[in-house]
């Protein structure tokens, strides 16, 4: 069973002027159908205004559909009796870690969520330990959050969600404000949570290189789901991605440019390793497609 299932999901709202008259009718989501498998690592791409953040907010019932249905772990998000359970199942992390910090030290920050859920004190401390270990921040448990770097703060925000033991974490551009080191830390943490603890990760991002290692990718445009597939499938279509105001990873772009110059490379090269193997095959008279295939199977 999918952990998230959107069925013909629509969401619209009205903008009102100062007199309270309807000024504009906005369709932020238009009939989105998608399933996300439990335990997978998926990414959602889309230009600003494509509806991806509106979609994310549907997953823990911050917003509920105005048309269609969203099921989270089998629960209909529009059913108010499920509200708490939906939020326990799908936790959310936002862009700016500073807006998400409230406590005076890291362990209290992480304890806040489970405490609010009414978890027994002994169990809260077990969960804090577990969450700190999961994001690799044990050494900082007594530190004040304002002494941490951006990447560390964001890992604490993630730990605060992990402590609620959700099956699924939704992250809306969690690396947009971070330096390269902070981005690496956060993305590595997410992959570890996914691999070791089997938490479903739903990552919204504008950084194409963060998509490369995902299992699956959805692309949104003007409120609709317009592409879905593995990162390799998505990034094989460089021109469509550009038309959607998006991009491809730099290595994919180099491969595409080489293809345009006549070098016989397969579509959808994602990593430096793949391109190096493919070019070695071109140079030595081998088969570049087979070389890329070999890289992929080795993983």
């Amino acid at each position: 069973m999918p952990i998230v299932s959107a069925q013909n999901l629509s969401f619209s709202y009205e903008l009102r002027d100062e007199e309270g008259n309807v000024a504009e009718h906005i369709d932020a989501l238009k009939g989105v159908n998608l399933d996300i498998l439990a335990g997978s690592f998926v990414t959602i791409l889309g230009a600003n205004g494509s509806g991806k953040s509106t979609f994310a907010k549907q997953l823990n019932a911050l917003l509920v559909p105005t048309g269609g249905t969203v099921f989270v772990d089998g629960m209909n998000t529009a059913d108010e009796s499920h509200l708490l359970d939906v939020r326990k199942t799908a936790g959310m992390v936002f862009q700016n870690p500073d807006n998400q910090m409230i406590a005076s030290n890291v362990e209290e920050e992480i304890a806040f969520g489970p405490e609010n859920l009414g978890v027994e004190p002994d169990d809260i401390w077990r969960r804090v330990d577990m969450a700190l270990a999961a994001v690799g921040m044990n050494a900082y448990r007594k530190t004040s959050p304002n002494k941490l770097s951006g990447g560390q703060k964001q890992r604490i925000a993630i730990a605060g969600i992990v402590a609620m033991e959700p099956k699924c974490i939704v992250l809306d551009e969690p690396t947009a404000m971070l330096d390269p080191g902070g981005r690496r830390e956060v993305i590595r943490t997410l992959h570890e949570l996914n691999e070791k603890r089997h938490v479903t990760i739903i990552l919204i991002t504008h950084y194409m290189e963060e998509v490369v290692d995902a299992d699956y990718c959805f692309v949104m445009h003007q409120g609709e789901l317009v592409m879905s597939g593995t990162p390799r499938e998505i990034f094989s279509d460089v021109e469509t991605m550009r038309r959607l105001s998006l991009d491809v990873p730099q290595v994919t772009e180099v491969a595409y440019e080489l293809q345009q110059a006549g070098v016989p490379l397969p579509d959808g090269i994602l990593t430096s390793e793949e391109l190096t193997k493919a070019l070695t095959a071109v140079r030595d008279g081998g088969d570049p497609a087979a070389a890329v295939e070999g890289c992929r199977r080795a993983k």
Partner: protein
Amino acid sequence: MIEIKNLTYTYEQGTGYEAHALNGVSTRIPDGQFIGLIGHTGSGKSTLIQHLNGLMKATTGDILVDGTSIYSEHYDMRKLRSTVGLVFQYPEHQLFETTVLKDVMFGPKNLGLSDDAAKERARKALELTGLSGERFENASPFDLSGGQKRRAAIAGVLAMEPKVLILDEPTAGLDPRGRDEILSLIRDLHERRKMTVILVSHSMEDVAQYVERIIVIDSGKIRFDGTPREVFRHYRELEALGLAAPQVTYLMHDLADAGFTVDTDAITVDEARDSILKSLPQFRRTV
């Protein structure tokens, strides 16, 4: 020209929490240069740029703008703030007026300009940022798209007609198209208006693509200063500082390790493509 001389900024001086945000920074910024300023969060880069337009005052050291110390008596700080324009992170959060035109006029009016003169400057600034015409002028800033809002906020700084433009992560949170729009706008201001530009960025790819000089800050000190090619040669050291090199740099090193004769200093997609084509005998002539 801006000359920074042995600049130090100390927080909570004389207490147990004393910390140096800047620790002896010296450099020159000639007119018309396009500089990328990189460093991890907390490295001191935001502190440095806030010194350049007088928002923060150095604990020790000096800043000379066109030969005059900004810390000298009777120095005109108001003039400094219009000479050195600072665009903060997420500048669109500071939009507040009822129309885009009024918002952009706010700065020049604060400089003491008449309504008409402020309007003229605002229109010029909006044209530079691609938001000219009644459609934008009379729109509420809050009805613009994310990228347009950011350009409107930049127009507000440009309307002060600064000689030096400093931007703190102007592309954070924008989609790739919005990012390209802002960066080509900045490149235009540098090339056509000869503005000095200091771009603070966490995107190594953007810095590699656009700037002519990179300054790397760590622990309040300048660690590297040179052309992008020179600086990204130190990619291992940059990683240790919480930074990185553009993705193509890693590709070029992997190719060199696999026996290709490629330029490991290539830092943009175009440079990488040309260098790779040259290294493949059967495609050499296509470059």
